[in-house]
């Protein structure tokens, strides 16, 4: 009886789907909310609608990646059909693998054009759960005009950055801009702080929190040194308020012209070059500084597009994903939004390089970015990251010494693991 009902319901829904496919279906998409994410996504989905006759609705999501994941998890638990296509952070595929559709049958091999490392990140248990959309890595923005004024060069080590930031900030404050800051970054207790901290620790040779074998490595002297250095910036070259800054808060201060340096993702470039930007043509981008004898490290970020398993229109949704991740759309987004393409060929495209020259010079930074320990920690990544960002936040805000905090963190991550294996 029960199965009979299921068959009838299935038959009915196929019928409805066939009927509505003919008339054009409505696909709900969640794009990002940081910077110009929404406008660019809207533009591309409008083009797709025009081509296919389907309608696209946009779901508004929170700004913080941690909050977005929370929202999606609740929707997945209810097997919600309210959203068909979602943007997926590079660290999520393992965490939410149970709820994403295998795009393999729909991609027709299109994923082979993209960076293999990202495709393998998005492939879990042999299933292609997400198409790469744009990649990301932390970069250092600096004020060309201010550095020239004080005869300084872009820093290559954190100590140089500290010294230069201090010199320029003090000079500018004396010259009348009391709000001038040396360095702004993301130190709010959220995923963004994990990215920043990982960059510091990794650039000092302190490893990547949890190594590839699953061993917790974060409690080491180099990591402590990195966090101590960063804590020294708070209240000196960085405002104490960075402890509550996300990406857009930092960009607000920098783009207003009130900071010498900023750590952010590439998206901030095109916004800083906008017609209404007070720092237009005054900004340079370089790789993040390194620790004394370490090497520059940038956290791998980036977003993917996935189809939710519970979607009523998987074929159309997958088609939309393929369109949004195609070379044409990625090129447009790279030129006008400075979103890093996931297709290597586009890094040689003259139009792309003209719009964002640092795509060429920082190619190695983007392709060798440090991944967060998401693969090895799997479903528990978010919890590990939360423990990590809270430990960093504790050190930055002066609540704990770096070595104590890291020791506590090591114990905590081991407790999260609950046993010898992840």
């Amino acid at each position: 009886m029960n199965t009979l009902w299921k068959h009838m319901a299935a038959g009915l829904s196929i019928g409805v789907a066939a009927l509505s496919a003919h008339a054009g279906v409505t696909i709900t998409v969640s794009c990002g909310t940081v910077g110009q994410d929404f406008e660019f996504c809207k533009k591309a989905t409008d083009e797709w609608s025009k081509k296919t006759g389907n309608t696209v609705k946009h779901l508004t999501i929170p700004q913080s990646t941690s909050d977005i994941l929370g929202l999606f998890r609740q929707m997945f638990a209810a097997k919600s059909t309210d959203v068909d296509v979602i943007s997926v952070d590079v660290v999520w595929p393992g965490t939410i693998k149970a709820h994403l559709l295998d795009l393999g049958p729909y991609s027709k091999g299109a994923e082979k054009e993209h960076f293999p490392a990202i495709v393998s990140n998005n492939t879990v248990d042999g299933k292609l759960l997400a198409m790469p959309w744009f990649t990301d890595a932390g970069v250092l923005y600096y004020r060309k005009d201010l550095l020239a004024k004080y005869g300084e060069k872009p820093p290559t080590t954190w100590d140089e950055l500290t010294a230069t930031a201090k010199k320029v900030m003090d000079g500018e404050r004396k010259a009348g801009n009391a709000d001038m800051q040396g360095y702004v970054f993301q130190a709010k207790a959220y995923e963004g702080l994990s990215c920043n901290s990982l960059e510091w620790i990794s650039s000092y040779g302190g490893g990547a929190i949890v190594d590839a074998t699953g061993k917790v490595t974060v409690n080491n002297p180099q990591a402590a040194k990195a966090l101590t250095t960063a804590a020294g910036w708070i209240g000196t070259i960085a405002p104490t308020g960075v402890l509550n800054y996300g990406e857009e808060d930092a960009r607000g201060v920098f783009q207003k012209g009130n900071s010498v340096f900023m750590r952010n993702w590439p998206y901030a470039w095109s916004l800083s070059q906008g017609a209404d930007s007070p720092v237009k043509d005054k900004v340079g981008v370089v790789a993040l500084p390194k620790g004394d004898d370490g090497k520059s490290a940038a956290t791998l970020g980036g977003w993917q597009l996935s189809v939710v398993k519970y979607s009523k229109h998987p074929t159309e949704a997958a088609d939309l994903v393929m369109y949004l991740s195609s070379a044409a759309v990625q090129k447009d987004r790279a030129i006008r939004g400075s979103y890093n393409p996931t297709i290597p060929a586009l890094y040689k495209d003259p139009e792309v390089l003209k719009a964002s020259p640092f795509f060429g010079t920082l190619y190695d930074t983007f392709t060798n970015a440090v991944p967060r320990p998401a693969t090895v920690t799997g479903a528990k990544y978010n919890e590990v990251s939360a423990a990590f960002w809270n430990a960093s936040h504790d050190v930055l805000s002066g609540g704990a010494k770096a070595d104590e905090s890291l020791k506590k963190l090591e114990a905590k991550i081991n407790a999260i693991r609950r046993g010898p294996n992840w």
Partner: protein
Amino acid sequence: MTNPKSELTRERTRSAWLFLAPTLVVLALVAGWPLGRTIWFSFTDASLDSIGDSTYKLVGLSNYFGEYGVFNFAAPEGFWQTDWGMAIQNTFKFSLVSVVLETVLGVVFALVLNAEFKGRALVRAAVLVPWAIPTIVSAKMWAWIMHDQFGVLNAMLRSAGIIDHNIAWTADPAYALWSVVLVDVWKTTPFMALLTLAALQMLPRDCYEAAHVDGIHPVKVFFKVTLPLIWPALMVAVIFRLLDALRVFDIIYVMTSNSVATISMSGFVRREIVDNNYVGYGSAASTVLFLIIGACTLLYLKLSRVDLGGKK
């Protein structure tokens, strides 16, 4: 055997139950069922992924006690330094300070509004504005007001010469919790003022006329006449606020994000269930929160001898 009076009583009891039945059914559905389910989940290892297809299993009391429980007294850093211990401390600090401030300020406001003066209606309406704004909106609004770089609060304090550098109100752990308390006081004082005002308006005038004739100082009148008379109403208002404050979530979450420095018990529950996917563990924390609030209410009723049934 039965006398007619008890027959009537039984008849009344029957109809009382009949009339109450729909309410009880609705209560059982919207309050009892979720509560029971939460308590049930707290004994399991449920996750958001496994509650849908019921693949979770019973784990006894391990979400409550032991190494992986909310009450991990053997934690290397000490129980009060665990996230849950911090959440309990933060919640109680927040609740006690904000409720005391709101009550005192609320009574002061109510006394002012109770006096006859021109434009009183307008002032009464104006005072209610903070209470009328949804918490999420006022929290975000205050987050901007208190922003360290763009915030108007720092600008005002600086131009008045009170501070010489911007204070990071919501980011600096020394200020964060108290900034939240400040905003909560701003938001909820009108509620306390309103309840107190309602009590004040019920007071008999003859006591005051007598006091006036006898030439008793107004402060003495307040402590000897007004306060004892409005005490029961005030205590009810305090209970409501205390229950509200103990389950605080939105204002802290919006203003200071997920930092353990300010996390509340409700925030901890949300983090464990939604962010970390531990429905079982989060449900255990939620159940403990429920028990703590219940215990606080009972203790409070006992101490202040307030009769909510109104039979006194």
